[in-house]
């Protein structure tokens, strides 16, 4: 029981071990003689992620004789396309782990198995937003892989001290802080504005927190949120080079190189930061994404991946695939996976436990996940198109091709036609 040997929390481990044994025994009873090979595809590539999945698989194969789990790594940029191609040939892997905005698209292929079909499936205890990522027509199609992630404002403590600036809580403070933090050698903040989904994702906390809604993106909340970014760029507090920057690694790189005093980014950066001897509370601090009015609640988009089971392998393989992902929903497994992934456990109680053992840098992320918003909620397969209209408007406004208002009006008419199609 490699997975369960975390110090402390022995009771949690014991509980999980017991439940695993029960699961294992029922498995042995049902299909003792059959040999099953499960295929799995995902885009996880950090050493921690690879190790976490490998260890769990080895343990799973030990408790389920005759079962082999074959994992295939596909780079992030190719996985969605590859899965769709495989769906076209009815040749999907038994198990797939996809980025959560892509979950509805996979469900729409009609080749995903509802998890409600399986004994033992439960939505109890999860952050509602996380488990709802897989909800379609009243059925749940997905379990979170290693929990969830989101973004917050990270800042360079020495730079803020040198400029006598405290971490900004409101937009007005963000503008003045970014200005004060800009010197000849570094910018106040590194934004992400490349032509990709991460730009929309970075802007969403500002937009949603301010009461924004995609269908009426050109009304006040949207105009205000985009004007904030525009001001940061026009002031010279944020580099215009962000038009070609990704969130990770570009913005992270600027932050680490000391070329930006702040950035909006996520906890998956902790391993990278620590490797460069940047530690929470010493080199960097974290506050929630600033809000326009002090009484506003921060609404962040929800990040993370989900397991889905395809119907390509027949019912025995489907059941076995479910047991594989069900085993990962045990609290001890969740804790271990979250730690190695740099994510937040998807169940509220487990996340609280995690906070105690994982350190204070997680605090902001854990608390705001309660208010996190799944990007595809109510939009489903239309989200990728909408996101594209949004990032195009952001780029148009920041590059000066269009005014904030006209860029958002263009986006709004595009979004309206997407929503009505």
């Amino acid at each position, binding site marked *: 029981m490699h997975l369960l040997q975390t110090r402390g929390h022995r009771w949690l481990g014991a509980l999980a071990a017991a439940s695993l044994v029960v699961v294992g025994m029922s498995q042995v009873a049902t299909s003792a003689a059959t040999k099953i090979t499960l295929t799995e595809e995902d885009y996880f590539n950090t050493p921690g992620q690879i190790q976490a999945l490998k260890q769990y698989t080895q343990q799973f194969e030990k408790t389920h004789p005759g079962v082999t789990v074959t994992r295939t790594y596909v780079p992030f940029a190719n996985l969605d396309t590859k899965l769709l191609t495989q769906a076209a040939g009815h040749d999907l892997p038994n198990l797939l782990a996809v980025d959560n905005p892509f979950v509805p698209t996979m469900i729409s292929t009609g080749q995903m198995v509802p998890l409600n079909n399986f004994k033992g499936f439960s939505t109890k205890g999860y952050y509602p937003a996380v488990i709802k990522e897989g909800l379609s027509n009243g059925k749940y199609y997905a379990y979170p892989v290693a929990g969830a992630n989101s973004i917050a404002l990270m800042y360079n403590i020495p730079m803020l001290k040198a400029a006598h600036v405290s971490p900004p809580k409101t937009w007005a403070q963000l503008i003045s802080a970014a200005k004060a933090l800009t010197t000849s050698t570094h910018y106040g903040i590194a934004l992400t504005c*490349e032509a990709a989904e991460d730009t929309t994702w970075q802007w969403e906390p500002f937009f949603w927190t301010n009461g924004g809604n995609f269908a009426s993106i050109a009304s006040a909340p949207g105009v205000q949120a985009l004007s904030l970014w525009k001001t940061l760029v026009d002031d010279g507090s944020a580099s215009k080079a962000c038009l070609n920057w990704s969130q990770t690694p570009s913005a992270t790189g600027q932050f680490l190189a000391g070329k930006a005093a702040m950035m909006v980014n996520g906890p998956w950066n902790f391993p990278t930061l620590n490797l460069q001897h940047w530690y929470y509370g010493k080199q960097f601090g974290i506050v929630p994404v600033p809000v326009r009015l002090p009484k506003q609640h921060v609404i962040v988009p929800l990040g993370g991946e989900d397991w889905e089971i395809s119907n390509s392998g027949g019912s025995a393989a489907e059941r076995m695939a479910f047991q594989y992902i069900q085993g990962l929903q045990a609290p001890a497994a969740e804790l271990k996976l979250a730690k190695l992934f740099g994510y937040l456990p998807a169940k509220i109680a487990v996340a609280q436990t995690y906070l105690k053992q994982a350190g204070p840098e997680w605090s902001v992320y854990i608390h705001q996940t309660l208010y996190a918003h799944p990007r595809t909620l109510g939009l489903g397969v239309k989200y990728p198109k909408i996101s594209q209209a949004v990032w195009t408007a952001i780029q148009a406004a920041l590059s000066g091709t269009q005014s904030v208002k006209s860029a958002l009006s263009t986006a709004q008419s595009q979004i309206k036609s997407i929503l009505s199609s």
Partner: protein
Amino acid sequence: MAIHERDPGMVEGGGQRRGSSPPDGRSGVRASDPTRLASWLSLERKQRLAGWAFLTPAILYVLFAFALPIIYNIVLSFEQTSPATIADITAPFAGLANYRFILHDPTSIAAIVHTFEFTGGSLVGQFIIGFSLALLFSLRFPGRTFARSLVIVPWLLPLIVTGVIFKFLFQLQGGAVDQLLVNIGLVHHPIDWLDNPHLALWTILIANIWLGVPFFTLLLFSALQDVPLDVKEAALMDGAGAWQRLRLVIVPIILPVIEVTVLLGFVFTVKVFDLVIGLTGGGPANSTQLITTWSYNLSFQQFSFGEGAALNNLLLLLAVICAPIYLMLNRGSLGRSSGVER
């Protein structure tokens, strides 16, 4: 084939056709020596069959690798596709909806315009620089061979690598080009090469010209080598100046090669994809979307395969126009250049 050896006259295709003037079955019946003629015909048939047998794999390959994707792409462009229909062989018929979308979508129209601007600009730049270099290398100077091999380097780099290199060169923060320009005092503020919607396409154009110059240089250089010395000498004797020799003697002689080179350059440029993806991903604000990048985006980022296919078929149309022109020019160039040599 052993039969061949018995009758060496049969081996040549031309002789064969002449030999069997009435190629139908009736001639066999009329012939004075039926057995011999029968073996003749069967031999001919066998050969023809063997010919087809040898051709079949190639035909199957062409059908499978070229015709099938093209036909599928055309079918796709008339369908209402989505991930929900991906597993079915056919999706609901969409009529001309996808084409109507392309003609009304501002980004698609912009992508088409960009593609022509980009291709035209690239060809002009590549030709002028490539031809100049080819002329330069026709002169004798020390280090000529080394310089010539150096020119080929861009050609050897994968496009995506070129994209990354140019991104480093032209990026706003710490880009080598801006640092150089600022240091020598040509500009006061760094230029936003890739972040300015009005400049970004030009920057990619520069990168693509750099990439295409080796191709033009190499082909035009070898054409220049083939210009007969006596013609050049005769022009010199007649008192033609350098410019006159170039314009009135050299260019007309190598014109067929120029035509084919420009046409091939057009085909190579119109389908550029990796370079744009590597440099800007089509941004900022879609100002560098080409037909290729935008149809990829429609198909694989927005999962509207039908719309992506419709846009992509424009490229297919261009290829359909270019292929016969190429064949014509190629045939013409062979005739003309051999005529010149005689």
